[in-house]
């Protein structure tokens, strides 16, 4: 994005949303950002869907000088070209960056929902995005694009709202998380549950004692291990012991209660965990990882071919050779079911060594750009 202009997150208030669980969640606020211009025919909109820890700030610099999480992909002349497309990115339902979630105030109690926030699903997140798109006056999206959890949403969009999109790009995703993935999420949530500083029951919210301990940081560290590949860890950190982060700035062993870590990989994880604590909410983490675990198109529709029956647009499925959390075999399950339902599907397995996070790292951006740009042009 244009670095001279800062972008700011907007928000829109909606009446409410009926969750899959039957609960009516109201009021509902959706935080979102847009880049580029919506054309007169309103047919150039691209919805970008963030992953677990992302937010609405996908591109450009915000008022604090923070760069968007997919700035390498979104901007003038980039993979998702903002001179051509009107790009929308919203914070997902249950998030903690402006959209209604556990940190929002429950109108019934006047206090934050915290752990009493109703369990949401990937489908609920998509239903809220559908409402946002309608509010913005868009009846059909040029494309929906997302990686990881965003890819699950893109699939859910294509399955449930086939008439509302012309194409979908599903990156490093799956139609149902593996037991291995569920296991990692479970351990991550346990790190939060075991945290003595975290309120174990919703009643504790009233005690005013609501200071998270390091459980969320540990959860994030576990997550980060699964997003990287063995090869990247070896190349980036090896067995080096210098306490220096990726930007070359050092941070001390004294940080974080004197457990900063000795090996570089330890320091890296420690740093990631600490910075995550400053920007994320642990109850959001619990709610969203559970939504990811529950996501299962096979269970929802009977089988994948039935799930994909109503898909009308062009599908692009992307996987990474080094992704062991959402491996290529899972993308192939999606591809084969789409083929069996005679859908227009492209499939690219990218040979990138950066693990599950390959679509986010700058080194992978040139190749990702070529794929996304080419596909969007051909829609």
């Amino acid at each position, binding site marked *: 994005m244009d670095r001279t202009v800062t972008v700011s997150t907007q928000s829109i208030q909606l009446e409410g949303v009926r969750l899959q669980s039957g609960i009516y969640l109201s009021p509902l606020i959706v935080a979102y950002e847009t880049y580029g211009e919506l054309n007169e025919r309103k047919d150039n909109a691209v919805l970008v869907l963030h992953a677990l820890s992302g937010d609405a700030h996908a591109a450009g610099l915000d008022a604090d000088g923070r760069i968007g999480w997919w700035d390498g992909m979104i901007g003038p002349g980039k993979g998702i070209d903002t001179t051509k497309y009107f790009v929308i990115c919203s914070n997902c339902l249950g998030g903690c960056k402006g959209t209604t979630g556990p940190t929002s105030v429950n109108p019934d109690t006047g206090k934050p929902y915290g752990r009493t926030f109703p369990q949401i699903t990937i489908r609920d997140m998509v239903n809220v995005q559908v409402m946002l798109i309608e509010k913005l006056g868009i009846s059909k999206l040029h494309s929906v694009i997302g990686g990881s959890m965003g890819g699950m949403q893109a699939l859910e969009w294509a399955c449930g709202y086939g008439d509302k999109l012309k194409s979908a790009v599903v990156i490093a995703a799956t139609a149902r998380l593996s037991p291995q993935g569920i296991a990692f999420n479970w351990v991550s949530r346990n790190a939060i549950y075991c945290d003595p500083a975290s309120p174990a029951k919703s009643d504790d919210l009233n005690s005013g004692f609501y200071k998270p301990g390091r459980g969320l940081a540990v959860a994030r560290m576990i997550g980060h291990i699964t997003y990287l590949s063995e090869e990247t860890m070896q190349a980036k950190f090896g067995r080096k012991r210098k306490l220096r982060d990726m930007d070359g700035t050092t941070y001390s062993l004294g940080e974080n209660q004197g457990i900063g870590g000795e090996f570089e990989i330890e320091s890296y994880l420690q740093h990631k965990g600490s910075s995550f604590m400053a920007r994320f909410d642990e109850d959001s983490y619990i709610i969203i990882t559970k939504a990811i675990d529950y996501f299962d198109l096979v269970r929802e529709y009977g089988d994948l071919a039935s799930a994909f029956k109503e898909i009308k647009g*062009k599908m692009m499925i992307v996987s990474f050779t080094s992704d062991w959390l959402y491996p290529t075999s899972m993308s192939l399950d999606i591809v084969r079911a789409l083929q069996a339902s*005679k859908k227009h599907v492209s499939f690219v397995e990218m040979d990138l060594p950066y693990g599950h996070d390959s679509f986010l790292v700058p080194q992978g951006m040139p190749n990702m750009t070529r794929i996304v740009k080419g596909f969007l042009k*051909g829609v």
Partner: protein
Amino acid sequence: MSDQTQEIRTPFHEFEAGFNIIIDLITPGTRVLDLGCGSGTLLARLRDEKDVEGCGVELDQEKVMRCTERGIRVMTLDLDYGLEGFPDLSYEYVVLSRTVQQLARPEHLVREMLRVGSKSIIAFPNFGQWKIRLEYLLTGRTPLVRTFPLPWYSSPDIHRITIQDFRHFVCDIGGKIEREFFIIKNEPKPRLFFPNLRADWGCVQISAQHSSL
């Protein structure tokens, strides 16, 4: 964006005549699956000249990206694993051009082609050509061939098949040869005396035996 792959060009890449034969064989407006589609040259021509709805299969990442950039639908798949997931008779034509001699399991893939496509078109270099035979006879060594002039231990052409070999192979797997073309000195020929001795390339259209023509 790179306009050219870094690959060294050999007579393998000068396949205009072969592409012309394949394009002539294909009925306009049909669906075509191109196995080992490279950077999508054939599919782009089929789209532009014959209004074909094409799909390519390619393993090389650079070529896959070039296909996507050209707006060609493509899949990253290894042909040695067959065509799992492609429904029966989901394409009017399945094309395998200049690739069959490089496959680890050609029988498996060609059977899969007969399953997935109503018709299959296969183009392959003819290693029965008289110069190649003569070189075997005179030197007693595996010749360097024009398509990929590399010694046996580094050549991608792991099967040195002949036009006769291919005819027998199609018969053995229960297929039927519907059309046959030969390429000699970049000239396509529907008929040729002693093709097994003279042709540089063979190009056949085959179908499963049971299909009615």
